[in-house]
């Protein structure tokens, strides 16, 4: 169940879940026989994509003395490398920063983007089309173009070195998520809110009680996108935070080196692995909603 399902629900028609295991297996075998070449090519590519992780795990478990030795596998596995990797840099403190900033940003951006997307989809107001053009325009502005000037401005207001920039960025929403929400909310019939209006509900209550519960897959998509964006971001924490409160991305990127500045590859591999595992787990966990969120909103 933790695998990408077909984004469209219609195509799994011939694959009802209640098929007994035995016949499902024979069906799979039939499919494999019908399409052996495609299957082999897909397996080959999947192995190719996963292989870097395998070599990373091997490097992470290799004792320092055997790094660079002319062998594929070390003679012994050194699990203590992971513990060393978390001690060589202030790993857990930075992991905490990463978790706090990523969740803070993702929660704020998820709901703020939903509000704005809803406004664009189902409300009317003067200047709406112009503002929507501005929204699409800001999607084209590379983040780095605004990041450096923002840094210069924020340092005047003593916001550098705090978490406030992420709160502000989150509260502002992200153009891409807003766009997805707008597409999604546009697809519902008008009757949906008319019934609620007759019941005397105000716009905010209609949004929260009628539309938000319907948009769970997209909420998950927006949360995952927001969380990964901050977890993976290097430039913003590098600019806006300092040694004492920076994120794991910065720590892992620059921490594992000896006094001459040469990388300690086995610790680096261990640290990188620990850094990437939460993102992959989050993706696997949210995958079905995530893919559905894209499929329902991204294509209209």
């Amino acid at each position, binding site marked *: 169940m933790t695998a*990408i399902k077909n984004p469209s629900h219609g195509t799994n028609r011939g694959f009802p879940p209640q098929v007994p295991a035995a016949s499902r297996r024979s069906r799979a075998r039939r499919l494999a026989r019908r399409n052996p070449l495609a299957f082999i090519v897909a397996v080959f590519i999947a192995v190719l994509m996963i292989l870097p992780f395998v070599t990373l795990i091997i490097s992470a478990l290799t004792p320092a003395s055997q790094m660079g030795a002319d062998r594929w596998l070390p003679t012994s596995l050194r699990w203590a490398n992971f513990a060393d990797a978390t001690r060589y840099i202030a790993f857990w403190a930075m992991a905490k920063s990463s978790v706090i900033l990523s969740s803070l940003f993702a929660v704020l951006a998820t709901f703020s983007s939903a*509000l704005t997307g809803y406004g664009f989809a189902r409300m009317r107001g003067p200047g709406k089309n112009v503002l929507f053009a501005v929204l699409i325009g800001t999607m084209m502005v590379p983040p780095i173009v605004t990041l450096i000037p923002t840094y210069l401005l924020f340092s005047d207001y003593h916001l550098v070195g705090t978490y406030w920039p992420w709160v502000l960025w989150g509260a502002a929403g992200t153009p891409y998520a807003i766009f997805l929400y707008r597409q999604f909310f546009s697809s519902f019939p008008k009757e949906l809110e008319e019934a609620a*209006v007759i019941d005397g509900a105000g716009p905010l209550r209609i949004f929260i009680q009628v539309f938000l519960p319907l948009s769970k897959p997209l909420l998950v998509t927006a949360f995952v996108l927001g969380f990964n964006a901050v977890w993976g971001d290097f430039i913003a924490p590098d600019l806006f935070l300092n040694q004492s409160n920076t994120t794991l991305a910065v720590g892992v990127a620059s921490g594992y080196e000896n006094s001459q500045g040469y990388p300690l*590859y086995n610790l680096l591999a261990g640290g990188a692995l620990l850094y990437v595992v939460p*993102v992959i787990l989050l993706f696997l966990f949210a995958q079905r909603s995530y893919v559905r969120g894209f499929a329902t909103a991204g294509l209209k």
Partner: protein
Amino acid sequence: MTAAARFSSGAAVNGRRTGRRRRLRSGLAFYGFISPWLIGTAALTLFPVGYAVYLSFTNWNGTTPFKPWAGLANYREVLTSADTLSTLSKTLVLAAVVVPVTIVGSLLLAMLLNRRMRGRAMLRTLIYIPAVVPPVASSLIWKVIFDRNSGAANRVLALFGVNPVSWLSGRTVFIVMIVVLLWALGSGIVIDLAALQTVPAEQLEAARVDGAGPFGRFRHVILPAISPILLFQTVLTVITTLQTFIPAILLSPIAAGGMGVMTNIPQANEVYMVDVYEQFFDYSRYGYGSAMLVVFFFVIVAMTALIFRFLGRSVFYAVDPAKAHQR
């Protein structure tokens, strides 16, 4: 509701007034809903961009209280400096390699994974996973693999009798950067797969009956149906590739170190964004760096316009029913 009130009692003064009030109220609600974004974009996107444009006309170094006016001097330098033009051309070469391979590759993968086969869901997940790996991690993973002494890449080459290559120094590091970017090729698969579901099945069937082979069906049915998505994807991939920064600074034999001390970046990886960073934080040339950002923005706008001009035409051509009938 608003419209109904407006039309049914249009003549009555009272009705007109409540209609106007309702419209005002719904307009207020609209602005209420979008206000977080509206204020945020004004303060965190439009204002900083404006500030960068202003700084680009100055020679500010970040310390003086006033900002000496420079006119167009920074822009003249950006467009004539051999260093900057070389970082720009490196970035364009990178995009010229990465973008087509990414677009074509993820489409081919999506078509492959769209076929019925055993373990399809699992294979999709495995092929997609590298796309969720953050750039810091993917850069470091490939850095470990391409290390001269301990990396797996040289050990594979040794099987074929090739001597160890110092991948991370010299020109070869550019290849490693391309590998890092292409590893995330799967990011387009989810969108491509969703797009492939929109291809009308009856058209595919009709093409098959008319004797179209797999290539003909791809060329005349599948490609036209998904071309708007491909266009959108191409534009986004161009924009993200031109911004490449993290792999460029992390792929070096010696650790790049923290901010402002990016002295060990291999020459081959001096892409445009690295140059911008250095102008700001190594040389404190805020005006020049800002001018580079503004020029970068225009490069992106120009690239997008070019893509729409050359690919956009084939998108509309393909869906033009009049032309489709002539075949």
